[in-house]
């Protein structure tokens, strides 16, 4: 136990500031203020791998590490679409996942948002469309934000998620990084370099 506490103390606070929302990634209509009020402060995400190579999933996992610390921004991954506000979908959508993706979408309560992640989610990527691939996520369900990249870096995915729940750049100024207000933050918002 002592070693565990020492390691926690030695690691300190490593969480970085949130990136600004990437409005250029938004393809759907901006949300109404009324809905933003509902979603904006505590967002629940259901991730759906609809045919990905698992590369995007590695970067989505990284959002949970202490450096990006998604949860400290009030955003968390949930186990069921019935608990979710936003679907984070990677592609290309395989034909074998088409029904499962539609059902997941239908099971998500309104109002709901969809963020398509990765080049394959955006357009089918290197796999394209074929006998077993539907290609882009938007070929199967409506999409609000597209985050390109192969795979996109965690900050890009985060910027895409934030774009989905932001109405306009002007409004962004008021959004703060909750991590900034965590008690005991004496190390600042930076990653401490590793020392051998």
């Amino acid at each position: 136990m002592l070693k565990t506490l020492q390691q926690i103390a030695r690691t300190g606070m490593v969480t970085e500031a949130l990136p600004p929302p990437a409005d250029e990634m938004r393809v759907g209509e901006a949300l109404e203020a009324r809905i933003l009020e509902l979603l904006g402060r505590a967002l629940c995400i259901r991730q759906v791998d609809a045919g990905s190579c698992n590369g995007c999933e590695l970067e989505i996992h990284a959002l949970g590490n202490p450096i990006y610390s998604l949860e400290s921004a009030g955003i968390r991954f949930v186990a069921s679409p019935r608990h979710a506000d936003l679907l984070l979908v990677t592609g290309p959508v395989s034909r074998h996942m088409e029904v499962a993706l539609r059902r997941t979408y239908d099971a998500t309560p309104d109002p709901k948002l969809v963020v398509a992640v990765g080049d394959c989610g955006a357009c089918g990527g290197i796999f394209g469309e074929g006998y077993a691939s539907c290609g882009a996520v938007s070929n199967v369900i409506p999409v609000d934000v597209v985050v390109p990249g192969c795979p996109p870096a965690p900050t890009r995915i985060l910027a895409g998620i934030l774009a989905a729940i932001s109405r306009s750049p002007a409004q962004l100024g008021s959004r703060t990084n909750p991590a900034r207000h965590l008690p005991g933050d004496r190390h600042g918002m930076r990653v401490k370099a590793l020392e051998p």
Partner: protein
Amino acid sequence: MSLARWMDRATHPQPAAGFAALEVKPGEWRELAQDVAAASGKLLALWGTNVAAQGDALRAVFVAPPRALLVTVALGDGTRRFPGIEDVFPSASRMQRAVFDLSGLRSTDPDTRPWLRHAAWPADAFPLSTDAMPPSPRSPLDDYAFVRVEGDGVHEIAVGPVHAGIIEPGHFRFSVVGEKVLRLEEHLGYVHKGIERRFTEMSILDGHRLAARVSGDSAVAFSWAYCEALERMSAIAVPGRGLMLRALALELERIGNHLGDLGALGNDGGFAFGLAQFSRLKELLLRAIEQALGQRYLFDFIKPGGAHRDLAAEGAATLGRCLDGIEAEARVLRGIYEEHTGLRDRFAGTGTVLPELAAWLGLVGLPARASGQPLDLRIDLPQPPYDALDVHRCVQHDGDVLARVNIRFDELVESLRLVRQILRTLPAGAHAVPARVPDTGSVGVGLVEGWRGPVVVGLEAGPDGAIGRCHPQDPSWHNWPALEHAVIGNIVPDFPLINKSFNLSYSGHDL
């Protein structure tokens, strides 16, 4: 009978140590498989193909150190049937079913259920031998015939394809009594996206990019195996610096995945501290890799002829410093994991695959080495630069979750040592030479020990610089069936932990 008499008939078309090619008749196929098994060899890959002027053929890759064998079984009689070897190599069963789904060649295995085909295409169309695939039916869900367990109090739990975490899709059907698992049956194929047919639409000098995306967590292993096959076919010698940079990338991929898994295993064992610590170390590693080599994940780092880019001295220094830090922290964390009684309780004796079962099932790679099966291609069939790298073998014998955790700690330390050795001995010179299109009809195999286990790419050159056929085989094909055995008698809540301790690929398997 022994393997030696087959070797007398083999040719050695590839200028590499340990590789041999052999053609056998359908009537000899089972005999050969039995002789390979008797010599403690393993089946690594199996696929259907169509050879110009000869028609249907089956190809297989066996490994029986100190050699690897590419076997071609010409099925020229037009019956499109071949003798099954599932009683000799159990993992062949699903591979044979996939050969039928994709190529239309049927084995004599009595299990004729589709494996990779669900409802996306009709049973009489074969993506690798039908030119124009019929349009997909409007998605009726298919009705897979799971094996039913009957008896007092037995009920089924169906999980997936969409799982509760950030995990690839697949379906698990548990038959349980109370919380005890009597039987698990896997149903995979959900992320089948037609990779092998897509390969045939690509130029052979571009295929490494698709290979890297067969299983994104093994991008280096697959793209290297692809390039190794291609370079053998076109007789290109990759310069020493390019080879060392590839080994650097492969070991960094292993380190990154092991760090991720060690954190996730701690988390699944109820110790969130482990996830926080190891995921932080992994992020620092990815950032150092990006600084040194330009990408967090090395998807397009390996290319035909060498490496996509060189490593500068500053980049090497950054990597070295980062890895020294990771090693020191990982040592502390290993101590914490070992002293944590709660974790020990979850890990020890959970999800056990004993060495005898592992040998029979043909387990490969990391889970095999946790069950006393020593095969490591970097040591037993070393391709350059591993012939000059002196890899230390890591083996555990208990075959439980704890053994698979310990193997990761051991291999993490060993890979860190190898990276240091690579950085110290990186030869000067070019990091790549120009690639060349191989002769039409030539065949090559690449074999790379990725972080999960042996990755195989079988490549056949088509006309005009196109890919005739490319078959990537992920080691998960051999290990998924073992997971069904590992959970028997365990409780349902331990399944996520056991599953994570194997961490098998869905995308790499489903293709």
